[in-house]
């Protein structure tokens, strides 16, 4: 009965799988090493992971070259889709991961890093995200998403504090619900079009001229809810501050970058064709969502007393800001998304790392939480360099030129203007002003208040080691001197986005 499978190995284009396979193999390697000799020092795993990611990065550079020459590549039964978006987002994913992993080499001992499983899971997670962005098949998106998410839940929980478990459970449960939404949404699309590949769905819908617009909208609603969760759009954002607070600072920073870019890519693939086909409803909803997310997150961030929670809300707001790119849907806006996110990763990882190096093992009595504002008062007197760097990150987040995020911000606002969204551009601009307040609040505490009595400044870098300092240094340099590379980045990003047809 069965017809013989007759596929040439060349047509599978297995090369497309290489960037994902590298971290998977790496993860297995780490587990195997542990199998042979356990109780290894964490530095081994860190460096190993770094190496693997480095190799992955090189592989990405290679496929970038291929893309630049040949354009979009499909592979593995046309499930894999390596276009500019996939490559750019993978660069961000792998790059941010490379910045993240050395943060495990803290001065104090945090036991999650002594488990090789942590690193293995981490690498699996990266592979998951990579899959997610380099396909337009909803099944693979789903699989990648869940692989990554499940690994992430575990990573959060491994921090082994009460709050981490709480955070992991919250994230997990809501994630499960989001998974349900995603599958339901996919199901409706499948029912409507008989396909789960985005380009085919688009083609079928266009062919019948959006007859069943009502059902299309239902599908969109569920997918929107699911990605709204991942991207922490209001009102699906509720997990974000809690999860960030519960997880280790660098992981929180990581979470504010990598999962989101993956989700952005999928959202871009999914929603843009709908917007371009004139689904006004989606446009309106996205508009409302973007504005709500930006504004409300900012407003909530105003009233926070903990820096990490504030940063959590701030990253929600930034995500909302970037989400505008998908609404605008021009080449410029999509390029702006990547530019913004690359610059954002430096600054945001940097600021979370600053929290990380000031992390104490146990909470002192006078502090409400790990990183309350009070903790930083008078920091400039006791730790001037650290305070200055932290201040720089805050200024960058607030969008003060010439620091990194400013360039992303103007390009994004400009894309809104070019796209004809004048009011949106104004709202985006004014939100930066609101956001200025809470970033400034930290600066006020650091630079303008007097230090607490028993604080000798050591606390701000109690966790610091050379690798951590290096990472912060890289982030700081990236933040300050962004203006030198913005042009190259912009040209590169625009080329890739444009050639992918977005």
């Amino acid at each position, binding site marked *: 009965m069965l017809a013989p499978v007759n596929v040439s190995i060349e047509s599978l284009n297995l090369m497309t799988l290489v960037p994902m396979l590298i971290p998977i193999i790496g993860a297995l390697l780490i587990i195997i090493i542990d199998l042979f000799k356990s109780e290894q020092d964490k530095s081994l795993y860190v460096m190993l992971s770094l190496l693997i990611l480095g190799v992955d990065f090189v592989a990405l550079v290679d496929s970038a070259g291929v893309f630049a020459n040949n354009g979009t590549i499909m592979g593995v039964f046309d499930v894999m889709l390596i276009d500019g978006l996939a490559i750019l987002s993978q660069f961000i994913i792998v790059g941010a991961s490379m910045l993240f992993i050395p943060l495990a080499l803290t001065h104090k001992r945090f036991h999650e890093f002594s488990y090789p499983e942590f690193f293995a899971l981490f690498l699996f997670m990266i592979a998951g995200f990579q899959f997610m962005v380099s396909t337009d098949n909803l099944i693979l998106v789903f699989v990648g998403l869940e692989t990554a998410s499940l690994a992430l839940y575990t990573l959060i929980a491994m921090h082994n504090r009460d709050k981490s478990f709480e955070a992991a459970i919250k994230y997990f449960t809501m994630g499960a619900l989001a998974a349900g939404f995603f599958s339901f949404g996919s199901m409706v699309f499948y029912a409507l079009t008989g396909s789960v590949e985005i380009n085919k769905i688009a083609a079928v819908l266009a062919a019948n001229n959006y007859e069943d617009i009502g059902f299309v909208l239902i599908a969109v609603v569920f997918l929107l809810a699911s990605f709204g969760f991942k991207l922490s759009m209001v009102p699906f954002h509720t997990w974000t501050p809690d999860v960030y607070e519960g997880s280790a600072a660098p992981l929180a920073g990581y979470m504010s970058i990598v999962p989101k870019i993956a989700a952005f890519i999928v959202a871009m693939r999914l929603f843009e064709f709908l917007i371009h086909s004139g689904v006004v409803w989606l446009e309106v909803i996205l508009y409302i969502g973007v504005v709500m997310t930006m504004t409300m997150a900012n407003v909530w961030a105003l009233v926070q007393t903990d820096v990490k929670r504030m940063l959590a809300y701030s990253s929600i707001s930034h995500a909302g800001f970037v989400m505008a790119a998908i609404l605008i849907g021009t080449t410029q806006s999509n390029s702006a998304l990547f530019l913004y996110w690359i610059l954002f990763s430096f600054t945001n990882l940097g600021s979370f790392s600053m929290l990380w190096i000031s992390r104490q093992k146990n909470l002192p009595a006078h502090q409400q939480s790990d990183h309350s504002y009070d903790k930083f008062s008078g920091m*400039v*007197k006791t730790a*001037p360099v650290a305070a200055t760097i932290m201040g720089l990150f805050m*200024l960058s987040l*607030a969008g*003060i*030129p*010439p620091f990194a995020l*400013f*360039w992303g911000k*103007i*390009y994004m*606002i*400009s894309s809104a*203007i*070019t796209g004809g969204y*004048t009011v949106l*551009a*104004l709202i985006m*601009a*004014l939100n*930066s*002003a609101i956001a*200025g*307040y809470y970033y*400034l*609040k930290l*600066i*006020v505490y650091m*630079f*303008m*208040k007097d230090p607490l009595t028993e604080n000798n400044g050591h606390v701000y870098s109690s966790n610091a080691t050379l690798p951590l300092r290096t990472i912060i240094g890289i982030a700081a340099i990236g933040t300050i001197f962004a*203006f030198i590379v*913005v*042009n190259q980045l*912009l*040209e590169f990003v*625009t080329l890739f986005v444009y050639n992918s047809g977005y």
Partner: protein
Amino acid sequence: MLDHILSILVFFPALAGILGFVVNKNSIRSYGVAVATIEFGLAIWLWFAFDSNVSGMQFMEQIALVPAFGINYIVGVDGVSLFIVILAAFFTMIGIASLGEMKDIKNLIITLLFLQMTMVGVFVALDAIVFYLFWELSLVPMLYIIGAWGGPLRIYASVKFFLYTFAGSLVMLVGMLFMAYFYYQATGEWSFALLDWYRLILPESFQNWLFVAFFFGFAIKVPMFPFHTWLPYAHGQAPTIGSVILAAILLKMGTYAFIRFSLPLFPDASVYFMYPIAVLAIIMIIYTAMVAYAQKDIKQVVAYSSVSHMGVIILGTFALNVEGITGSIFLMIAHGVVSGALFFLVGVIYDRRHTKIMSEFGGLASVMPRYATIFGIMLMASVGLPLTINFIGEFLSLLGFYKQSHILTLLAGTAIIVGAIYMLSAYKKMFFGEVTHEENRNLPDVNKKELLALIPLTIITIWLGVYPKVLLEPINKSVEGIVTLMHEKSITQEAKLRIPNVNKDMGLITKPEREAH
């Protein structure tokens, strides 16, 4: 070196600031003075090298920054900006030189050097984004100065200052991006270069919208009524040096930007909004002068008087003729010198008595005669007495605006009355009468260090009042260029009528581009 003098002027203080971190705390003051003096010397050299017969930009430099998006580092000076740059260098110098004993003086001096970079940067930038960059960046050092060395409400004041200005300038940023977009539509290329923008002629309605967007940024900085309320707080709480720099230089950014951006970019809109803005300016003049009269705190009096004077500057700017604009630029410098000096003077008495409430003083004229004399001279300059620096600016500004409206000038002219009222009554409260407070009986008169700042300011105040030609000539030349450009660019009948035809061929390309949209 002259080819890069502007970049050197901009970045030298910043570089020195970074190196300053290494300098020992005890020597930092000398270091600061040395750096600021070198900078001032460079600024003076710039002046000598400056050719006052050229109306366009000089010493231009261009470095690509983000060419893909049309952002370039372009700097240059003309008569409009030259003297404000020199003023900035000058005030930083005497500001650092006259610093008293303060906590964390090292941080303060380094911050001042960074502030100097941003100040000079704003005035020499010829690319909108670079301009914006320095414009925003200037908030940061000022925030720190107010917030770390200020009075009891310093944090509220500094945050208010920052956020208010920040919010305004973000609207301006949107305007800039729009402008660049229109340029892109007209030419197919992104550019934020001001000189490119000058060539673009926009339809009137676009001009109006963009004018409003820019207006928010500039008006808050100036600050214009009703956006002025951050200023009394900032001045009231800032340390002396902060107030001096804020009043002397930072406020000028707004008015300078009106002349640099709003007028030549949107001539028709400038004409369209001339009356509303003039009305605001007049409210500023009269209203804030009255509020100043009600103050109990001498520093607040000076702060509100700044707003009042800025009203005259705005009025001169929107006279839209050579006399008015020249006058307003001159008044910027004049107001910088005079209000800077007044804040220094307030600082002198604050250092001695740690209060600024006027009722705490009285009869100081007999205790501190030198102080009273210098204060008196500055007071008279502030009131706009002829042969002082302020008069030239005020006279020309009002003279210029008279061409546009008789009644409004008459109203604005009440500046010279209301100004006299609050200033004289403040002076009377502080210096005249018997010494009523025992603490005041033995106050030392101004010391050498303070005179170091005050004497040069006094000399400038009178010198430029008697012989303003040195400044007026280059300013006039550049302003003629601007007015010509505006006249050529304007499209409405009204604007052609309101903006005089100076009739000097500037060789500018004013061919209408393809119309946007």
